[in-house]
């Protein structure tokens, strides 16, 4: 079954991890576009408006929260934006949700459940 939301933009500065995410999401049925920095990703997102944006919080240029703010400010309120972070502390989920993210996934990920987590956050069956 084709997903209605199947375009994903992955923003991750670590190459091997980014490749892993792209590979897992592609195998999960998503059309994935990946970027290693926030600025070029934002330009693409504004132009192409993917269904889901999965962004690392710690990025070399603009960080994940700034990407979230930019997108929400520009009116992409319904876009699913998921935070990806290696800083998994107590209360972080609530914090990211409060910020405006639709969800967050902490590293290291479980490849087997990664896709289902993304779908769950995006509300995809």
């Amino acid at each position, binding site marked *: 079954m084709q997903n209605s939301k199947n375009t994903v933009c992955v923003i991750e500065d670590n190459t*091997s991890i980014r490749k*892993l995410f792209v590979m*897992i999401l592609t195998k999960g049925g998503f059309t994935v576009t990946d970027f290693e920095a926030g600025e070029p990703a934002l330009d693409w997102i504004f132009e192409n408006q993917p269904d889901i944006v999965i962004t690392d919080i710690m990025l070399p240029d603009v960080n994940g929260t700034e990407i979230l703010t930019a997108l929400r400010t520009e009116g992409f309120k319904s876009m699913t934006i998921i935070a990806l972070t*290696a800083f*998994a502390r107590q209360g972080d989920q609530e914090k990211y949700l409060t910020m405006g993210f639709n969800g967050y996934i902490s590293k*290291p*990920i479980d*490849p*087997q459940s990664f896709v289902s987590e993304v779908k769950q956050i995006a509300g995809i069956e």
Partner: protein
Amino acid sequence: MMSNTYDSVLREAAKKGTSVFSFKKTYPAYIVLVLALAASVIVWKVVSSSVEASNRGVFDKASASVVSRIETQVRDHEGILKSMEAVLKEFPVLTRDVFELYASIPTKTRTTIQSVTFAEYVTKETLDDFIFFAQSERFPYYDVHPKGNKPFYFPAFYVMPLEQNSKFQGFDLSTDNETLKAIEECRDAKKLTSTGEIQLRKPDLHGFRMFMPVFKDSTKVVASELKTKGLFKGVIMLEVLAHEMFRVALSQRVATDTAISFTILDTVGTGKEIYSSANFKKDFIPTYSQTFDVKIGNKAFNIQVHSIPGFGASNLPLLAFIGSVITSLLLFAFTISILTARSRAEDLAERATRSQRRIVDTSQDLIGVIGIDGVWKSINGAVQLALSMNPEIVVGKSFYDMILDDDKAKVMKVISEAKDEESTTFDVRMPSSRGETRWISWNITVSKTDGLMYAIGRDVTEAKLAQEQIRIKGKQLELSQQYTVEMSSFQSLFLSDASFFFRTELTGIIGYLQLLAGKVYSSEQEHDEYTALASESAEAMLSRVSDLLDVAQTGTSSMIDFENVPLSETITHNIEHALLSVRNPNVTTLFSTNGVDTHLLSANKSLLTQAFDLLISSLLTDVQSGTIDVNVEINSYEQVAELQLLFPPSDSISAVIDKLQLADHSKTLINLASDTDDVILKIAQAQSKIKMQRGTLSIDSLGKDGNVVMITLPAKKIAARRRKVA
């Protein structure tokens, strides 16, 4: 009362000083004293004389009074005789009635008169006629007695009072020699005569017989012719009771009688005592005495008057002398005072100056006087102590030249702005002659009136250095705290970064390994790619692990060494060691170590000992006696030894524990401000040392049940010994 003020001590010392009272300065006072004492002697003598004269006067007055009264009495009785004689002269013939008429009055009015008698001169030839005549005078039984054949007789003819003297009537007075002698004397001298005191009748009746001659005619005859011409008729005799006469004479006492005593002696007869005053004492030597002769007729009796014991005794001369001596001494003292007033004032001033000079000289503060121009006028010996400079060298030097150049301008400004007669304080650096710089805190009072500046300085170098040290230590502490925070922050950050990194790299490792394990690759190339990516992440992690070791050593000179030590033995040893340090023999321990002998503790021995020393010394504060219950168990699951130490109750420790927040370092640091016994400091230090050994320490108060400490430390079971296989 002891002196207790500076002034009073100086004044008392001045009083004891001798120089002011040297003879050279005070000889006039001694002259005054000598003269005054001489005057005292004169006063004594004058007063003595005055008292003597007064006493003599009193005595004489008293004596005269007695004598006068006796003389009056005697004159009175003589007067009776003379009156009788005068009366009888008027009558040509003396008859009984006439005699009795005129004689009755004195005899009735005077108790002193035994009788008034007319004794007729009767010759032998006329005796019978006389007796006849007497009997015709209504004396029927009249007779002359004692009988005798004599040429003449003097029989008592008329006698009054007759009743009392009836037996005396007819008595021949010539039979008594003394009486006859007195009769003959009065006949011959034609004067009143008297006997001495003789026995009148009974042995106890004594008195005087006073006589007045009676002649036949009133013609005057020459005494030598009396016998031949026979004109002598007889005598009028007054028998006076001597004792009664004196008694009556002195019966009306006067005040002066009390001052004297007297005795009346018969000088004619035996010289015996006729009459004495009641207070007369024979064996007493009187102060004053005088003898008077009182004539009675042609005789005299002797009145010896004595002053009574204690008469005229007066302390007045002695008192006057003493008073005069005291006055002399007071005058002497006053003179001395006047003479030495100036000297004493000068001496006192000199003492005060000397004393204050001593205070200044012995003071360890610099005390001196500076001219308005800044030149030292005087400085005390403390300058030697403070700046190693001789006071003599400093005097004449400029105060400003002694100040370090950097501080000079400041001092000059402060002094120039100082108000007159008000003190100003400042601290300056002054190089000593030994080359070191000393901090001197000056208090200077500028007196424009005196043209001087009064300076007191104190060497505060040590205080300044200490202050500086404290300031430095404070800064160091502040910085150390900052470094600690920085280190803590750095480590936190590093760990946070490391966590982030590891999580990131692990994402790759786990992810790719899971893909490889799940054979989620479509080609050999993909397989190799996944393997290479996983390996890449692993390499990155390895390099970061190396960094960890570097960070672990950051800020410390060496890593803590851990040893595996026997659990039970180590705990027991450390607790006992700590108790020895506390030196309280009343605190004991009770160990319960269940199955812990099989375990080793991973710890740093030194840190562990320090931790227990700190813990036990702090928790036994204010504990007099008790038992520390030590319970050690092994938590195999967490691989730690759990130590529970139950300390005896202590209210002060419980109070500290209640506000202790060991987990919050900043709150612990704040609580140190009220940590007077260092309990919080020690507990916090103990906890830190335990944590440095990967352990934990918590503490709780159970009130009256005591205070409990729970410690965990890594522990592992002792490996079973393997038997060597041959």
